[in-house]
């Protein structure tokens, strides 16, 4: 009787998860395996795929300067935007956690840019970065500085994207705010009794208690920034000037859907996956030195 019930429940279980299982096979596992095979072929979707072994990978790494350029642009963007975004969103979260008046309104305003559709944001910022009439250069000239050719100068186009990204730090800030509110107040009270100042409290209470959340945001940020820049660079610069904003994902898109080099683009996707995996792994390993997990003592 009991085993019949268990069988019935198991059947029901498989029935309920069957939509996901179908999606998983069709849109996840199937494509992952297929992608690996395709990356070993030359395939333009018109003629039959031709097996070329590791040629695509070799060609990408040895003979494609644009591949290295796209990797450089993406890394440069990540190295600039990750620490800046992390510090800015943590700082704003700490300020908002100070029990000031009007916190609701501040939270709403700071979160607003994160609600902005990427396409609309790209159009708006193309106008803001306009050389002569854009508001940013108008402000710079008003301050007696020289306006910059944000989107047409190869040196400034990635920093311009970083500035645009910093505008929407509100999304990350919310996660920090929730983390801050989870820190037990007794810890601060104990630090007060010991005569610790604000800076000491920040270093010895806030930072260690927040380190798991920081790690989480850092890893999500790494994964995100390697896949970043498609919509913005496609709409704002098309990868220019002189490929200075040719993000990894944009170059992948161009190879796949403009040049129909499916095998080549698949190899690019796999290299991207391996790079992200490697960096995430390294961050995780190093994180044991600075992430503090409550209940496990200092991890060091």
């Amino acid at each position, binding site marked *: 009787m009991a085993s019949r019930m268990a069988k019935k429940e198991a059947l*029901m279980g498989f029935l309920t998860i069957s939509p996901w299982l179908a999606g998983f096979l069709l849109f996840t596992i199937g494509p992952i395996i297929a992608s690996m095979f395709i990356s070993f072929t030359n395939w333009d979707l018109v003629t039959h795929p031709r097996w070329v072994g590791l040629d695509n990978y070799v060609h990408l790494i040895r003979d494609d300067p644009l591949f290295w350029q796209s990797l450089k642009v993406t890394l440069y963007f990540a190295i600039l935007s990750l620490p800046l975004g992390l510090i800015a969103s943590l700082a704003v979260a700490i*300020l908002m956690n100070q029990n000031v008046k009007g916190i609701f309104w501040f939270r709403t305003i700071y979160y*607003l840019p994160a609600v902005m559709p990427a396409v609309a944001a790209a159009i708006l910022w193309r106008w803001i970065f306009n050389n002569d009439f854009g508001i940013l250069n108008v402000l710079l000239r008003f301050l007696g500085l020289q306006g910059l050719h944000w989107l047409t100068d190869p040196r400034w186009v990635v920093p311009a994207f970083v500035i645009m990204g910093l505008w929407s730090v509100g999304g990350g800030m919310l996660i920090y705010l929730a983390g801050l509110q989870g820190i037990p107040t007794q810890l601060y009270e104990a630090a007060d009794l010991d005569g610790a100042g604000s800076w000491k409290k920040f270093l010895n209470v806030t930072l260690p208690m927040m380190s798991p959340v920081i790690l989480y945001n850092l890893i999500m940020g790494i994964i995100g920034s390697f896949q970043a820049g498609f919509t913005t660079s496609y709409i704002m610069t098309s990868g220019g000037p002189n490929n200075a904003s040719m993000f990894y994902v944009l170059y992948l898109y161009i190879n796949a859907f403009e040049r129909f080099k499916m095998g080549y683009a698949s190899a690019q*996707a796999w290299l991207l996956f391996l790079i992200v995996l490697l960096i995430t792994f390294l961050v995780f390993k190093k994180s044991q030195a600075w992430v503090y997990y409550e209940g496990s003592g200092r991890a060091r």
Partner: protein
Amino acid sequence: MEFFRRKSVQTFTGKLLTLVVLTGGAIVILIPFAWMLSTSLKPAEDVWLLPPQWIPKELHWENFVNALTIMPFLRYTINTLIITTACIIGTLLSASLVAYGFARLRFPGRDILFFLLLATMMIPGQVTLIPTFILFKYLGWVDSFLPLTVPAFLGGGAFAVFMLRQFFMSIPMELDEAATIDGCSPLGIYWRIFLPLSKPALGTLAIFVFMGCWNDFLGPLIYINSMDKWTITLGLNAFMSQTGGIEWNLMMAASLVFLIPCLVIFFLAQRAFIQGIVVSGVKG
């Protein structure tokens, strides 16, 4: 006594400083929005005035009408709404059913499958993008809404299932047991108990799906060719490249209209919105 007085003075100046910094930041964040609104209401020639006028001499509301009639934006809006609605319905129905199975039913291999579901969240979308495109091409679905909507009915993505499963885990077991004694089947429990109890979580998920679909650019760019099937994002992109960055007043007006539904939903459902971000962020 001295100690307390010093401390309260300190916190007062601290609070004032905090308020000043936060206000400064808020102004910096709002300037682009103000600039957008201001540009959208200007006559074409006033866009090129230096120094720029923050408040246009006359408000040209007809910019909004012009921006939306230069291209068939009504058509694009209807298309986007069809895709978005289908995605929301599909995700809510299928993800909740799958989440219920993972949260409450016992079957062999459940934990391994759930682990696989979580693992798929780590794989970059670019890896599956090309084979999925080829699959849809062979099915003859390219240049239709099917590639953009059918996946939603098949679980709606790992995140949706994960989020609802976590919510379902917090529903007390006693409810299921009582319902089972009353002769309710597992599907009945799902439909009559779990779905009604999960309205807040379903609402939050619906908002996320709406935002994802409404703003999607890469999906329509890859799958939709015919102009009469374009979404708003494709329309805006074409508008941008056709006018070559000249008619900024109309560009800003069109983008603003496109942004408004997102703003309205954000203001109406701010609590659900922020809760959802926080829950998905500090999941641990």
